[in-house]
Protein backbone atom coordinates (compact mmCIF):
# COMPACT_ATOMS: atom_id res chain seq x y z
CA UNK A 1 0.00 0.00 0.00
CA UNK A 2 1.26 3.46 -0.94
CA UNK A 3 1.31 6.25 1.60
CA UNK A 4 1.98 9.99 1.48
CA UNK A 5 4.46 12.02 3.46
CA UNK A 6 4.50 15.83 3.53
CA UNK A 7 7.67 17.94 3.51
CA UNK A 8 8.28 21.16 5.39
CA UNK A 9 7.71 23.28 2.26
CA UNK A 10 4.49 21.46 1.39
CA UNK A 11 3.18 22.32 4.88
CA UNK A 12 3.76 26.04 4.20
CA UNK A 13 2.27 25.93 0.71
CA UNK A 14 -0.70 23.95 1.91
CA UNK A 15 -1.51 26.60 4.54
CA UNK A 16 -1.22 29.36 1.93
CA UNK A 17 -3.48 27.55 -0.54
CA UNK A 18 -5.96 26.68 2.17
CA UNK A 19 -6.39 30.38 2.86
CA UNK A 20 -6.12 31.85 -0.65
CA UNK A 21 -7.17 29.05 -3.00
CA UNK A 22 -9.10 26.36 -1.08
CA UNK A 23 -10.91 25.05 -4.18
CA UNK A 24 -7.64 24.57 -6.03
CA UNK A 25 -6.13 22.81 -3.02
CA UNK A 26 -9.15 20.50 -2.77
CA UNK A 27 -8.87 19.70 -6.49
CA UNK A 28 -5.21 18.67 -6.32
CA UNK A 29 -5.82 16.70 -3.12
CA UNK A 30 -8.65 14.82 -4.80
CA UNK A 31 -6.36 13.96 -7.71
CA UNK A 32 -3.68 12.89 -5.24
CA UNK A 33 -6.25 10.45 -3.84
CA UNK A 34 -6.99 9.18 -7.34
CA UNK A 35 -3.28 8.68 -7.96
CA UNK A 36 -2.85 6.71 -4.71
CA UNK A 37 -5.77 4.45 -5.72
CA UNK A 38 -4.22 3.96 -9.12
CA UNK A 39 -0.81 3.06 -7.71
CA UNK A 40 -2.35 0.65 -5.24
CA UNK A 41 -4.27 -1.14 -7.97
CA UNK A 42 -1.62 -1.07 -10.72
CA UNK A 43 -0.11 -4.36 -11.78
CA UNK A 44 2.90 -2.53 -13.21
CA UNK A 45 4.27 1.01 -12.93
CA UNK A 46 3.42 1.85 -16.55
CA UNK A 47 -0.29 1.45 -15.79
CA UNK A 48 -0.27 4.31 -13.27
CA UNK A 49 -0.88 7.04 -15.82
CA UNK A 50 -3.55 9.71 -15.82
CA UNK A 51 -4.42 12.99 -17.50
CA UNK A 52 -3.86 14.97 -14.30
CA UNK A 53 -0.26 13.69 -13.95
CA UNK A 54 2.76 15.33 -15.56
CA UNK A 55 6.27 13.89 -15.49
CA UNK A 56 8.74 16.67 -14.72
CA UNK A 57 11.98 14.67 -14.85
CA UNK A 58 14.20 13.20 -12.14
CA UNK A 59 11.21 11.30 -10.76
CA UNK A 60 9.22 14.45 -10.00
CA UNK A 61 5.53 14.25 -10.88
CA UNK A 62 3.13 17.20 -10.96
CA UNK A 63 -0.54 16.64 -10.11
CA UNK A 64 -2.87 19.26 -11.55
CA UNK A 65 -6.36 20.46 -10.62
CA UNK A 66 -8.33 18.70 -13.44
CA UNK A 67 -11.96 17.78 -12.69
CA UNK A 68 -11.89 20.08 -9.68
CA UNK A 69 -14.52 22.48 -10.93
CA UNK A 70 -14.83 25.46 -13.24
CA UNK A 71 -12.58 28.55 -13.45
CA UNK A 72 -9.88 27.24 -11.15
CA UNK A 73 -6.41 28.70 -11.25
CA UNK A 74 -3.83 26.35 -12.82
CA UNK A 75 -2.35 24.62 -9.80
CA UNK A 76 0.20 21.85 -9.43
CA UNK A 77 1.28 19.75 -6.51
CA UNK A 78 4.79 18.39 -6.96
CA UNK A 79 5.52 14.96 -5.61
CA UNK A 80 8.15 12.27 -5.72
CA UNK A 81 7.09 8.62 -5.82
CA UNK A 82 9.65 6.52 -3.98
CA UNK A 83 9.08 3.01 -5.33
CA UNK A 84 11.29 1.31 -2.74
CA UNK A 85 9.41 2.72 0.27
CA UNK A 86 6.07 3.05 -1.55
CA UNK A 87 5.84 6.62 -0.30
CA UNK A 88 4.71 9.73 -2.19
CA UNK A 89 6.67 12.69 -0.89
CA UNK A 90 4.62 15.88 -1.16
CA UNK A 91 7.20 18.52 -2.02
CA UNK A 92 5.54 21.80 -2.92
CA UNK A 93 2.43 23.39 -4.44
CA UNK A 94 2.49 26.14 -7.05
CA UNK A 95 0.75 27.85 -9.94
CA UNK A 96 1.56 28.35 -13.60
CA UNK A 97 3.85 31.34 -12.91
CA UNK A 98 6.04 29.47 -10.46
CA UNK A 99 6.06 26.24 -12.51
CA UNK A 100 9.67 26.50 -13.72
CA UNK A 101 11.06 27.27 -10.27
CA UNK A 102 8.88 24.64 -8.61
CA UNK A 103 10.14 21.92 -10.94
CA UNK A 104 13.77 22.82 -10.24
CA UNK A 105 13.07 23.06 -6.52
CA UNK A 106 11.42 19.62 -6.52
CA UNK A 107 14.26 18.08 -8.51
CA UNK A 108 16.72 19.46 -5.94
CA UNK A 109 14.70 17.83 -3.17
CA UNK A 110 14.88 14.47 -4.94
CA UNK A 111 18.61 14.86 -5.66
CA UNK A 112 19.36 15.67 -2.06
CA UNK A 113 17.22 13.06 -0.35
CA UNK A 114 17.04 10.28 -2.93
CA UNK A 115 20.26 10.35 -4.94
CA UNK A 116 20.51 7.76 -7.71
CA UNK A 117 22.40 4.59 -6.66
CA UNK A 118 25.61 5.41 -8.58
CA UNK A 119 26.09 8.60 -6.57
CA UNK A 120 25.95 6.73 -3.29
CA UNK A 121 28.78 4.34 -4.25
CA UNK A 122 32.08 5.02 -2.48
CA UNK A 123 34.87 6.51 -4.65
Amino acid at each position, binding site marked *: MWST*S*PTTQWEKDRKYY*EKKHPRELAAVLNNL*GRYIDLLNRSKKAACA*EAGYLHGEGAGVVAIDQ*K*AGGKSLQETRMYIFANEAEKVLYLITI*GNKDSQHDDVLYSRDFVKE*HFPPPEQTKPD
Partner: protein
Amino acid sequence: MPTETETKAPARPTGRKYTSVAELMRGENVSREVQDRVAELESETRISRYLAGMRAASGLTQAELAEKLNCTQSCISKWESGEDEELTIKVIWDYCRATDQRLGIFIGKPLGHVEAIKAYAFGLRDRLKALAAIANSDSDLEQSIQAFFGEAFFNLLTIFENCQREMPNSGDFELRIETQCKQPKMLTCRHSEPQHKPSREAVMA
Protein backbone atom coordinates in the same frame (compact mmCIF):
# COMPACT_ATOMS: atom_id res chain seq x y z
CA MET B 1 2.75 31.12 -4.43
CA PRO B 2 3.54 32.26 -0.92
CA THR B 3 7.26 32.52 -1.56
CA GLU B 4 7.40 34.26 -4.91
CA THR B 5 9.43 37.13 -3.55
CA GLU B 6 11.40 35.13 -1.02
CA THR B 7 13.78 32.22 -1.46
CA LYS B 8 12.35 28.91 -0.33
CA ALA B 9 14.32 26.97 2.22
CA PRO B 10 15.11 23.45 1.00
CA ALA B 11 12.24 21.07 1.67
CA ARG B 12 12.82 18.42 4.32
CA PRO B 13 10.76 15.27 4.88
CA THR B 14 8.66 15.54 8.04
CA GLY B 15 8.59 11.79 8.55
CA ARG B 16 4.82 11.77 8.98
CA LYS B 17 3.06 9.21 6.80
CA TYR B 18 -0.58 8.79 5.83
CA THR B 19 -2.22 5.99 3.92
CA SER B 20 -5.00 8.08 2.40
CA VAL B 21 -5.83 11.66 1.54
CA ALA B 22 -8.57 11.70 4.19
CA GLU B 23 -6.00 10.64 6.78
CA LEU B 24 -3.51 13.23 5.47
CA MET B 25 -6.09 16.02 5.78
CA ARG B 26 -7.05 15.00 9.30
CA GLY B 27 -3.43 14.57 10.41
CA GLU B 28 -2.31 17.89 8.94
CA ASN B 29 -5.35 19.77 10.28
CA VAL B 30 -6.60 20.81 6.86
CA SER B 31 -9.66 23.08 7.17
CA ARG B 32 -13.15 21.58 7.23
CA GLU B 33 -14.00 23.57 4.09
CA VAL B 34 -11.25 21.87 2.08
CA GLN B 35 -12.01 18.43 3.55
CA ASP B 36 -15.69 18.78 2.59
CA ARG B 37 -14.82 19.93 -0.91
CA VAL B 38 -12.46 16.95 -1.39
CA ALA B 39 -15.23 14.60 -0.23
CA GLU B 40 -17.60 16.25 -2.72
CA LEU B 41 -15.09 15.92 -5.57
CA GLU B 42 -14.43 12.32 -4.61
CA SER B 43 -18.10 11.50 -4.95
CA GLU B 44 -18.18 13.25 -8.34
CA THR B 45 -15.22 11.22 -9.65
CA ARG B 46 -15.87 7.86 -8.00
CA ILE B 47 -16.70 5.91 -11.16
CA SER B 48 -13.90 7.39 -13.28
CA ARG B 49 -11.50 6.61 -10.43
CA TYR B 50 -12.78 3.04 -10.40
CA LEU B 51 -12.46 2.67 -14.17
CA ALA B 52 -8.81 3.74 -14.02
CA GLY B 53 -8.29 1.19 -11.25
CA MET B 54 -9.91 -1.57 -13.33
CA ARG B 55 -7.54 -0.84 -16.20
CA ALA B 56 -4.48 -0.67 -13.94
CA ALA B 57 -5.43 -3.88 -12.12
CA SER B 58 -5.71 -5.63 -15.48
CA GLY B 59 -2.15 -4.59 -16.29
CA LEU B 60 -3.22 -2.44 -19.23
CA THR B 61 -1.74 0.94 -20.10
CA GLN B 62 -4.05 3.62 -21.47
CA ALA B 63 -2.66 3.00 -24.97
CA GLU B 64 -3.29 -0.76 -24.72
CA LEU B 65 -6.85 -0.22 -23.56
CA ALA B 66 -7.42 2.34 -26.31
CA GLU B 67 -6.38 -0.26 -28.86
CA LYS B 68 -8.77 -2.81 -27.37
CA LEU B 69 -11.64 -0.31 -27.41
CA ASN B 70 -10.73 1.07 -30.81
CA CYS B 71 -10.44 4.62 -29.56
CA THR B 72 -7.62 7.08 -28.84
CA GLN B 73 -5.51 7.23 -25.71
CA SER B 74 -6.71 10.77 -25.09
CA CYS B 75 -10.29 9.43 -24.88
CA ILE B 76 -9.20 6.99 -22.17
CA SER B 77 -7.32 9.74 -20.37
CA LYS B 78 -10.36 12.04 -20.54
CA TRP B 79 -12.73 9.40 -19.14
CA GLU B 80 -10.39 8.44 -16.33
CA SER B 81 -9.46 12.01 -15.35
CA GLY B 82 -12.84 13.64 -15.80
CA GLU B 83 -16.04 13.76 -13.82
CA ASP B 84 -18.48 10.85 -13.65
CA GLU B 85 -21.27 12.79 -15.33
CA GLU B 86 -19.24 12.84 -18.54
CA LEU B 87 -19.25 9.03 -18.72
CA THR B 88 -21.78 6.97 -20.63
CA ILE B 89 -23.10 3.50 -19.89
CA LYS B 90 -21.35 2.33 -23.04
CA VAL B 91 -17.97 3.47 -21.70
CA ILE B 92 -18.53 1.59 -18.43
CA TRP B 93 -19.68 -1.47 -20.35
CA ASP B 94 -16.58 -1.31 -22.59
CA TYR B 95 -14.26 -1.12 -19.58
CA CYS B 96 -15.87 -4.15 -17.94
CA ARG B 97 -15.64 -6.13 -21.17
CA ALA B 98 -12.05 -5.14 -21.98
CA THR B 99 -10.72 -5.72 -18.47
CA ASP B 100 -12.89 -8.79 -17.77
CA GLN B 101 -13.99 -7.23 -14.50
CA ARG B 102 -17.27 -6.45 -12.86
CA LEU B 103 -18.54 -3.09 -11.68
CA GLY B 104 -21.73 -2.53 -9.69
CA ILE B 105 -23.14 0.96 -9.54
CA PHE B 106 -25.90 2.13 -7.23
CA ILE B 107 -27.22 5.60 -7.81
CA GLY B 108 -29.58 7.49 -5.55
CA LYS B 109 -30.48 7.74 -1.91
CA PRO B 110 -28.37 5.35 0.16
CA LEU B 111 -30.19 2.47 1.87
CA GLY B 112 -30.56 2.51 5.64
CA HIS B 113 -28.85 -0.29 7.56
CA VAL B 114 -32.03 -2.31 8.05
CA GLU B 115 -33.10 -1.89 4.42
CA ALA B 116 -29.63 -2.91 3.27
CA ILE B 117 -29.61 -6.04 5.47
CA LYS B 118 -33.02 -7.03 4.09
CA ALA B 119 -31.80 -6.50 0.52
CA TYR B 120 -28.71 -8.62 1.16
CA ALA B 121 -30.86 -11.31 2.79
CA PHE B 122 -33.13 -11.54 -0.25
CA GLY B 123 -30.09 -11.67 -2.51
CA LEU B 124 -28.64 -14.43 -0.39
CA ARG B 125 -31.90 -16.37 -0.52
CA ASP B 126 -32.00 -16.17 -4.32
CA ARG B 127 -28.41 -17.40 -4.63
CA LEU B 128 -28.99 -20.28 -2.21
CA LYS B 129 -32.13 -21.27 -4.10
CA ALA B 130 -30.16 -21.27 -7.34
CA LEU B 131 -27.51 -23.50 -5.75
CA ALA B 132 -30.21 -25.85 -4.41
CA ALA B 133 -31.64 -26.10 -7.92
CA ILE B 134 -28.21 -27.09 -9.23
CA ALA B 135 -27.87 -29.68 -6.45
CA ASN B 136 -31.24 -31.17 -7.43
CA SER B 137 -30.25 -31.48 -11.05
CA ASP B 138 -26.65 -32.60 -10.65
CA SER B 139 -25.94 -35.46 -8.25
CA ASP B 140 -22.16 -35.01 -8.65
CA LEU B 141 -22.39 -31.52 -7.23
CA GLU B 142 -25.00 -32.31 -4.60
CA GLN B 143 -22.54 -33.25 -1.86
CA SER B 144 -20.28 -30.27 -2.30
CA ILE B 145 -23.24 -27.89 -2.41
CA GLN B 146 -24.60 -29.53 0.73
CA ALA B 147 -21.22 -29.00 2.40
CA PHE B 148 -21.16 -25.40 1.23
CA PHE B 149 -24.62 -24.82 2.74
CA GLY B 150 -23.35 -26.06 6.08
CA GLU B 151 -20.27 -23.85 5.91
CA ALA B 152 -22.21 -20.77 4.81
CA PHE B 153 -24.79 -21.36 7.54
CA PHE B 154 -22.11 -21.57 10.20
CA ASN B 155 -20.27 -18.53 8.87
CA LEU B 156 -23.42 -16.44 8.86
CA LEU B 157 -24.16 -17.43 12.43
CA THR B 158 -20.64 -16.52 13.40
CA ILE B 159 -21.11 -13.10 11.83
CA PHE B 160 -24.34 -12.62 13.76
CA GLU B 161 -22.70 -13.77 16.96
CA ASN B 162 -19.73 -11.42 16.55
CA CYS B 163 -21.96 -8.45 15.81
CA GLN B 164 -24.25 -9.33 18.70
CA ARG B 165 -21.23 -9.18 21.03
CA GLU B 166 -20.91 -5.50 20.19
CA MET B 167 -24.45 -4.85 21.43
CA PRO B 168 -25.06 -3.57 24.95
CA ASN B 169 -26.02 -6.37 27.38
CA SER B 170 -24.88 -8.97 24.88
CA GLY B 171 -24.48 -11.47 27.73
CA ASP B 172 -28.27 -11.91 27.79
CA PHE B 173 -28.33 -13.00 24.20
CA GLU B 174 -29.17 -16.59 23.32
CA LEU B 175 -28.89 -18.04 19.88
CA ARG B 176 -30.64 -21.38 19.63
CA ILE B 177 -30.33 -23.36 16.48
CA GLU B 178 -32.65 -26.14 15.48
CA THR B 179 -32.10 -27.94 12.24
CA GLN B 180 -33.38 -31.02 10.56
CA CYS B 181 -30.75 -32.76 8.50
CA LYS B 182 -30.67 -36.13 6.80
CA GLN B 183 -27.34 -36.79 8.42
CA PRO B 184 -26.93 -35.54 11.96
CA LYS B 185 -24.56 -32.60 12.08
CA MET B 186 -23.46 -30.62 15.06
CA LEU B 187 -24.03 -26.97 14.42
CA THR B 188 -22.53 -24.90 17.13
CA CYS B 189 -22.65 -21.27 17.83
CA ARG B 190 -20.68 -20.42 20.91
CA HIS B 191 -21.36 -17.27 22.77
CA SER B 192 -20.60 -15.72 26.12
CA GLU B 193 -22.36 -17.52 28.95
CA PRO B 194 -26.06 -16.66 28.87
CA GLN B 195 -27.28 -15.47 32.22
CA HIS B 196 -30.93 -16.43 31.97
CA LYS B 197 -31.24 -19.33 29.60
CA PRO B 198 -28.61 -22.00 29.95
CA SER B 199 -29.87 -24.21 27.12
CA ARG B 200 -28.09 -23.01 24.05
CA GLU B 201 -26.98 -26.25 22.51
CA ALA B 202 -27.48 -26.96 18.88
CA VAL B 203 -30.28 -29.42 18.39
CA MET B 204 -29.88 -32.25 15.99
CA ALA B 205 -32.64 -33.99 14.27
